[in-house]
């Protein structure tokens, strides 16, 4: 900073001016400080007492603001709101954002208690943090007010479970809107060449085919995995981790169980998968995964149902009609995919909760959800729609039985509020192992250490 020198004023004028200047600055500083204090009072920098009590809010603002994803899953909700608003004659606004930005926007709104949104679409991994921070409205009283015990039994059990906090047993904080769970995608034609006319049931079977395809010299790789640190690699790894019998934590999260023999088997197998994947897979994310499959250069992968329609789109895919779907193959235990539903919840600070609840209830009802499925191709969360004969008769819903089974056998990501950080850390070591920068054993033990300290900091592990 420039030096604050005090020169003797040359004459009276300068002295007067110095004094004037000082007074101006002081006044400005006082005003600014006053403004700051006032703003702090209104802006509420620290959270006040949470409002997600057990009353049903009665007053509304006649307007619903929805925050949603800009992919088909999110657009379905936006379209539903448009129809609902027309039906009820209320105003509405849709805030659409790409996946990452949606999370940040929602966190900003919820943590600053600004009440900008009345309904938020959230990806399941975010749910625990939002619920535990008391940012979501408890929906049970609203169900009671319409004489329903809770979420309809038509929703798949696993889908309902993730909407409750604590998991499966607690209060209801969200509706399951889009039924995402991972599936095993494979090239029916190539797998048939090696004797598999249906989806491989075990990882060993699957791997044997992948190896043969990679070795066949046709330029097609047997598998494509994503190894980029963070969510990409963890999402790819978890199904394998679980099917080899691995678990990240004990059931009450008091112990971290990453460094185990089952985990080592899983990680070693994961690296075998990398060897039959295209080079550079260690840093792939979802886009590269898609590109390799769509261009026909990879024969199998684990991915989300949103890809089904892309694979069948001739303007994007070179493998139309050649992709088959199966449940996650098994190893030591039954294969289990990550469940990654999109949920619809109502922020605790929304000013229009009753109407918001009404809307979401309507949006996830049997008739509306079925219409959304038909219009946007997004998977449902209701058993009745998954087994609807009129839908099953159409080839584009041929994967429904597989997906429903996948959801029923799915495992949610660990229900901890700091999952983002844990996933990030776990993902760094997984990525290093896949990149060959660390041995599997070292990666797992380092992950065990770091995740344990994260869990201690968050108060799960003593």
């Amino acid at each position, binding site marked *: 900073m420039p*030096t604050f020198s005090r020169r003797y004023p040359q004459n009276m004028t*300068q002295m007067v001016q110095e004094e004037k*200047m000082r007074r101006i600055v002081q006044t400005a500083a006082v005003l600014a400080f006053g403004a700051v204090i006032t703003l702090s009072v209104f802006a509420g920098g620290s959270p006040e007492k949470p409002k997600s009590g057990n009353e049903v809010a009665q007053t509304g603002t006649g307007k619903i603001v929805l925050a949603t994803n800009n992919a088909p899953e999110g657009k379905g909700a936006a379209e539903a709101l448009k129809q609902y608003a027309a039906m009820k004659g209320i105003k509405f606004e849709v805030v659409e954002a*790409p*996946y990452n930005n949606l999370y940040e926007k929602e966190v*900003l709104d919820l943590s600053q208690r600004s009440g*900008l949104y009345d309904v938020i679409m959230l990806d399941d991994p975010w749910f625990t943090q939002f619920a535990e921070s008391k940012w979501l409205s408890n929906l049970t009283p609203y169900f009671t007010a319409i004489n329903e015990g809770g979420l309809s039994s038509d929703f798949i059990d696993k889908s309902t479970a993730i909407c409750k906090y604590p998991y499966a047993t607690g209060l209801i904080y969200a509706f399951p809107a889009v039924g995402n769970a991972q599936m095993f995608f494979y090239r029916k034609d190539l797998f048939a060449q090696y004797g598999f006319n249906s989806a491989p049931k075990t990882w060993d079977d699957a791997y044997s085919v992948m190896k043969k395809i990679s070795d066949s010299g046709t330029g097609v790789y047997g598998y494509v995995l994503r190894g980029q640190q963070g969510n990409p690699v963890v999402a790819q790894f978890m199904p394998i981790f679980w099917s080899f019998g691995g678990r990240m934590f004990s059931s009450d999260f008091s112990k971290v169980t990453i460094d185990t023999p089952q985990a080592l088997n899983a990680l070693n197998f994961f690296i075998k998968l990398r060897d039959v994947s295209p080079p550079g897979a260690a840093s792939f994310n979802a886009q590269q995964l898609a590109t390799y499959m769509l261009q026909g250069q990879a024969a199998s992968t684990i991915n989300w149902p949103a890809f089904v329609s892309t694979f069948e789109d001739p*303007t994007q895919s070179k493998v139309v009609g050649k992709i088959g779907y199966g449940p996650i193959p098994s190893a030591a235990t039954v294969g289990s995919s990550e469940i990654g539903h999109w949920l619809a919840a109502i922020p605790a600070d929304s000013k229009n909760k009753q109407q918001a609840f009404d809307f979401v209830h309507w949006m996830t009802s049997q008739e509306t959800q079925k219409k959304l499925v038909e219009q946007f191709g997004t998977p449902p969360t209701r058993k009745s729609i998954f087994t609807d004969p009129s839908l099953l008769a159409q080839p584009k819903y041929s994967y429904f039985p597989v997906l429903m089974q996948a959801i029923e056998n799915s495992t949610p990501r660990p229900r901890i509020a700091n999952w983002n950080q844990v996933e990030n850390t776990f993902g760094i070591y997984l990525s290093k192992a896949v990149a060959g920068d660390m041995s599997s054993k070292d990666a797992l033990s380092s992950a065990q250490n770091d995740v344990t300290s994260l869990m201690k900091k968050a108060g799960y592990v003593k």
Partner: protein
Amino acid sequence: MTGKILRYVFLILVMIVVVFPIIWLISTSIKNDVDIFAMPPILVPSHPTGKSYVGLVDNGLFAYLLNSSIVAVATCLVSIVIGTLAAYSLARFKLPGTWTSRISFWVLSTRMFPPIVTIIPLFQMLRVMGLVNTRLGLVITYTAFNLPFVVWMMRGFFAEIPRDIEEVAMVEGCTRMGAFLRTSLPLAVPGLAATAIFTLILSWNEFLFALIVTQTTQSATLPILVASRVGQYQILWGQMSAAGVIAMAPVLAFAFAVQRYLVRGMSFGAVKG
């Protein structure tokens, strides 16, 4: 002679590196999705399509264009007016003590603050003022960003313009402000033009704060449109490229048109004694 040839070779090589990525973006924006990552790469697609651009229109392209334009122009006007006046004051008048340099440095230091941290308090302030998701909110934010640059630049220009010109005007009966408006300001036009251009471009291109402040097409700007082409699982490369082309076209055209002013305006010795 060899010097001249070397010069042209060097420049042409540089130009290829500079221009090629831009051309590639334009090329991608008119390709079918299947062709975008085809190997070997296709420069000129055999079946060019306007599909990506049409897709953008369906997604509210005109709203984004309107918002970007309004915000950029408004920010430019406000920052230039406020900043130039302040710059003039700093250049011409002696503030008591070391206040001039303190204020100058403070103005510059506001540009040093990492933007991430101002996001949350800014969001709170805008929320309290009801300016989240409004163009006005963006204009206020961007003006705050641009002011340091405007003040810094224009102060340099005014410092180069001799005081005598204004003294003469005041002797002839003008007030200080009058002298400023009639004599110094016109001489500083190249500097004003250069600064204005930078202000426009900064507002047009800004991404992070637009991301935080805007929620819907009511106020969202073009960079948001580009970013919104990222899906959860895959990127809509065609549409993203088209949005990129649309976002860069006015800026590039504008830059070519005013290139001469930019160079001249940036010269600190705009007026030789």
